[in-house]
Structure formats: structure tokens, C-alpha cells
């Protein structure tokens, strides 16, 4: 019987992360070459990082959900709902900045509770909950802001300090925060009871239930963690891009899932890698920048992302089939 190898660094993850890092570097060099070197500029790096931050938090969040064997593709629209609603309160109702930021996160948490409750306690199929949530989020945002876009304050204003989350006098604070929270996520997933239960119930829910664990509670928790991270993502989105428009957000669903699945997290549940997700997010962000740099429009980004996810999930599916 073939033993399932377990190299310390590769540890149970489908895709070898070393391979991924190579892919990342290769891509970077390829784009650089194709653009005659202009790809290596400072502003390009900044743009990529801006994309990494919010997408990264979305990806981290959805990693927890996929670890339970579920899915959440409402994350993009929910992120927008968070920044639209709290931004509207900020600009129109005069709510101060700090509470607005907290509200952003809380809206994400609320959606996480909603999604998690329906999936864990009522056994509604995750894809239906996602579909419903996605549209409810879009609807709430549009109704709240009367279908208008919302612009968050510029860095030069009094309230502009929130932009320091991204960078402060040239220091990429955002990167530290993102990596820091990634480390926390990795610790939670791999070293705490929460993470242990989430991963195990994703692998074999009934065995965990028969061991006396309240699986419903922990499944719902995964969705709440996701919602919280989506709320955080919304802050980084507006800090980078200022203006949010209702009705959008869908593309980020796929990209977040792409980053997650590429990094080795299995759609079947039970196997998840935070570091893989982080690398995956960098790859997706770089890809996006590269496509733009080469003069293609974002439509090509959609197509390529879609194909990447298909490839990543298929390799996971066939790896599982071979193992059985």
C-alpha cells in the first residue's frame, strides 16, 4: 500500500509550496521581460501590494470555510456592502472614522453569522446560502446608499489616518499587518482547538461528532471567522481604492477562491494551508498586474482566473481519486 509521504515543509498539502514560490518568481521575471523592464518599477510593486491586501484577507477568510468542506462566494459583495454602508454613515451621517471602521468589520461578522447559522444548523447547501447572501449584500448596500457610490476620505484630510493601514510615509504597513494576520490565522488553524476541530470536521464530520464534539458550533465559527476577515478586507480596499460602487464585487470571489485552492487547500475539506493561500494571493495579484501591464483589459483576467481555479480544483480532485 502506497504510503502518503509527509515531508515537513510539504506537510499534507497538495501543491508543493516551493513549486508555487518558483512559479511566482518566474511570473515576475516573465512579466518584467515582456514589458521591457518597466514592470519592476516602484509604483508597480505598490499597486500589486494594494491588491494583495484586501484579496488576501478575503482569501484567508474563505480558506477557513473551504476547510470545513463548504464554500462562500458572497465574500466580494459582502466586502463591498461593508465599505459602502459604513462609508455612507461616515460621509453622510457624520459617524467618526474609528467607529465607521469598526462598523465595517461588524457588518462582515454579521454576514458570517448569517451564513454559518444557515449552513451549520439548518443544513442549507452552502452554495444556496452564498447565492442568497451575495444578493442580499448587494441589495442592502444599494438600498442604503441609494445606489450611489461612496468615496472614503483622502489621506490629506483629518480622517485620512486610516490610510496608514496601507502605508505610512513609504513604509508598507499594510504588508506587515497582512502577514501578521496571516500568521495569526495559521496559528489559529494549526495550533488551536478551533482550527483542529474545523479541519477535522471538514475531513470527517461524523467521526468528529461521534467523538463528542459539537460540530455545528465549530462549523459556524469558520463562517464567522471568514466574515470577520471580509470586514477587515473592506477597510484595506477603501484605504487603497477610495471609492466603492454598489453592484460589484463578484470577480473577487473567484480570485479569492483561486488563491486559496492554488495554495493547496482542498475543496473536499480537511486540508488547508495558510501559507499556500498567501503565496496564491501573491500569484493572483501579480497576474492581475501583469495582465494590465501587458495592455490587456481585466476581461482577460477573469478568463484566466476561471481557468486557473478549474485547473487547481481538478488536480485536487484527481489526486484524491488516485488516493482512494
Amino acid at each position, binding site marked *: 500500500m502506497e504510503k502518503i509521504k509527509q515531508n515537513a515543509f510539504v506537510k499534507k498539502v497538495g501543491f508543493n509550496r516551493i513549486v508555487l514560490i518558483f512559479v511566482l518568481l518566474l511570473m515576475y521575471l516573465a512579466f518584467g521581460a515582456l514589458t521591457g523592464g518597466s514592470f519592476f518599477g516602484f509604483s508597480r510593486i505598490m499597486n500589486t501590494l494594494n491588491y494583495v491586501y484586501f484579496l488576501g484577507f478575503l482569501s484567508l477568510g474563505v480558506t477557513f470555510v473551504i476547510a470545513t468542506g463548504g*464554500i462562500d*462566494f458572497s465574500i466580494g459583495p459582502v466586502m463591498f456592502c461593508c465599505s459602502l454602508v459604513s462609508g455612507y454613515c461616515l460621509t453622510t451621517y457624520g459617524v467618526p472614522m474609528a467607529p465607521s471602521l469598526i462598523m465595517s468589520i461588524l457588518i462582515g461578522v454579521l454576514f458570517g453569522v448569517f451564513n454559518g447559522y*444557515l449552513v451549520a444548523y*439548518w*443544513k*442549507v*447547501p452552502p*452554495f*444556496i*446560502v*452564498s*447565492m*442568497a*447572501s*451575495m*444578493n*442580499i449584500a*448587494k*441589495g*442592502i448596500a*444599494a*438600498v442604503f446608499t*441609494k*445606489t450611489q457610490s461612496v468615496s472614503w476620505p483622502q489621506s490629506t484630510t483629518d480622517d485620512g489616518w486610516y490610510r496608514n493601514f496601507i502605508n505610512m510615509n513609504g513604509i508598507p504597513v499594510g504588508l506587515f499587518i497582512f502577514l501578521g494576520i496571516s500568521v495569526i490565522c495559521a496559528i489559529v488553524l494549526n495550533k488551536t482547538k478551533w482550527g483542529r476541530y474545523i479541519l477535522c470536521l471538514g475531513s470527517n464530520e461524523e467521526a468528529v461528532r461521534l467523538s463528542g464534539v459539537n460540530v455545528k458550533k465549530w462549523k459556524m465559527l469558520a463562517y464567522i471567522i471568514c466574515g470577520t476577515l471580509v470586514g477587515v478586507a473592506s477597510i484595506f480596499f477603501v484605504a487603497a481604492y477610495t471609492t466603492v460602487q*454598489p453592484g460589484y464585487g*463578484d*470577480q473577487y*470571489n*473567484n480570485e479569492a*477562491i483561486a488563491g486559496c485552492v492554488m495554495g493547496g487547500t482542498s*475543496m473536499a475539506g480537511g486540508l488547508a494551508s495558510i501559507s499556500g493561500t498567501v503565496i496564491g494571493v501573491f500569484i493572483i495579484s501579480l497576474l492581475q498586474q501583469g495582465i494590465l501591464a501587458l495592455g490587456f*483589459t*481585466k*476581461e*482577460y*483576467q*477573469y*478568463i*484566466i*482566473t*476561471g*481557468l486557473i*481555479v*478549474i485547473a487547481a*480544483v*481538478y488536480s485536487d*480532485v484527481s489526486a484524491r*481519486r488516485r488516493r482512494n
Partner: protein
Amino acid sequence: MANKKAFGKLKGREAMVLAIIVAMIALFSILSPTFRTYPTLVSVLDNTYYITLMALGVTFPLITGGVDLSIGTGLVSYALIGGFLIFQKGMPVGVAIAVCIGFGVLIGVFNGVLVAIMDLPPFLATLCTCMITRGLGPALCGGFGVSWPSSISADGGFRKIFKFVTAEGTVIPIGIVFMIILVAIMSFVLDHTRVGRYTIAIGSNKEATRLAGVNIKFYHVLAYVISGLFAGMAGVAYAATYATIYPGAGAGFELDAIGGAIVGGVSASGGVGTILGSFLGVIVICLMKVGLPFIGLQANWQQIFTGIVLIAAVLVDVLKKKKD
């Protein structure tokens, strides 16, 4: 699971949905005198065409226990391509219609292969195709909005399938006849042909169907091809009822179609569903879409309500299953 016949040929669930439709029309008519006018009726029907077509098609993947999330962005994409061919390439409308539907079928085959042959989870596979089609349309057409020929132009004849404007300017929505014919045809396919029979069988017990010697791969793929075909047709309907088609639209259309199907009795777990049910369910969704503004709720409330209705419909099914 009750399949009892209520009024003559109407099953219990369908009768209930019909009652809901009547109740909704009554409610809106009472609350808003402007609702019960002829232009409103026409406007309601205008919306039903493309959504009904989507719902008729997506009923098939849903009955197999899967889903097709690519129909929304898909139909807009196909319509874009068709319109592009007319205006940028000077092709006749007939060719555009054929290409529009043809693309739908093509993507349907792609979806079928992903789900039935490569064994990818349906929601993820079609979520990816959703992204791919979202990019495909604009990528092929340069990213601009297009309009198909207007009704007064020489080529505008195709619009007459849906709306016939008499010399005096009265609008006759003959599209409704077209819909009823399609409902009849697809009901026949689902209830009385092997295609429909095996689709239900696959959703009911895939393994037993395979053991009975049925070529399940073929019929499983076919379910998605049907969905794609109708998405293509929906693209034509969409182009015929709206003036301009913008790229980037379409996200969320599938909620209306899938929501309608589920309200009408299609089960998310497969094996159950009727074409008439999906049609009636779609009418409920469209009534909500058009009716809500008349009672003072702007259009975006519809998204929220549709999401809630979808979850409520699924919960009803979950509760019923628990009772059995």
C-alpha cells in the same frame, strides 16, 4: 414527498405557487392603483422572458442535483457577441442569433464536461465558467456596450417575437405565447422523453441509474448543454427586450432564475422538479421585481427579497424532509 394532484393536472406545490402569484397581484393592486394597468403588465412580462428562459434551462442541472451559475453572465456575454457581430462585422441578425445560441451550447458542453466527466463540484465549475464568460464577451468585442437593432429599424423584426407593436402604438406582449409554447415543449421533454427521465433518475440515484445500464455521462452532460442552450436563447431575449447591453451586467441574474426554480418546487438536492413549477416560480420573482417599486421600495430591495425568498424556499424543503 407529496406529489398529490390538486387541481386536475396541477401538483400541490404548483397550486400553492399559483396561489402566491394571485395573492401578490392582489396585494400590489390594492396597495398601488398604478400597478393594475396594462403598461405594468407588459413591463412585468418584459422581465420574464429572459429569466424564464434561464429558469427553464437551469431546471435540468438542478434536477440532477447540480447547478449552473454561469447562465447570468453567460447570457449577457452571448448577447454582446451577437450584437458585436451585427454592428462591427455587419452580419445579419439571423447569424447573430445563431452565434448567440451557439455559444450558449458551447459553454454548456464545457460545463457538462467539467461536472460530469472531470467530476468537479458543480457550483465551483460553473462559478468558474461564470467568470470565464464574463471575460469572454467583452474580450471578443472590445469592451463596449452594444445594442441590437431597434424595433423600428429594418432588422428589428426579431423583436417582434416578444413584443408586437400595432400601428396605433399598442404593445402586445406576444412573447408570453412563445414562453408558454416553450414551457409545454420542455415539460414534454422532462416528463416524457428519455432525456428528462434519465435526468431525474441521475438526480434521484446516480449509481442505481448507472447499474441499470444507462449512459449517465451522456445524459449528465446533456443537462448542462440544455442549460447552456437556454442561456443562449435568454441572451437573444435579453437583447430583444432591452435597448443596450452593457458588459459587466448579468451577475445576479442566475439568482432570479435559480430562485424561481426552487420556489417552484425544484429541490436543491435533486430528483424533484417540474417545468411548470419553475415557470410559476419565476413569475413570483418577476412580480416581486416589478411590484416592489410600486409600493415604494426601490428596485434594489428586490435583490434582498429574492435572496430571502430563496432561503425560505429551501428551509421549507428542509423542514418537510425532517418531518418525513
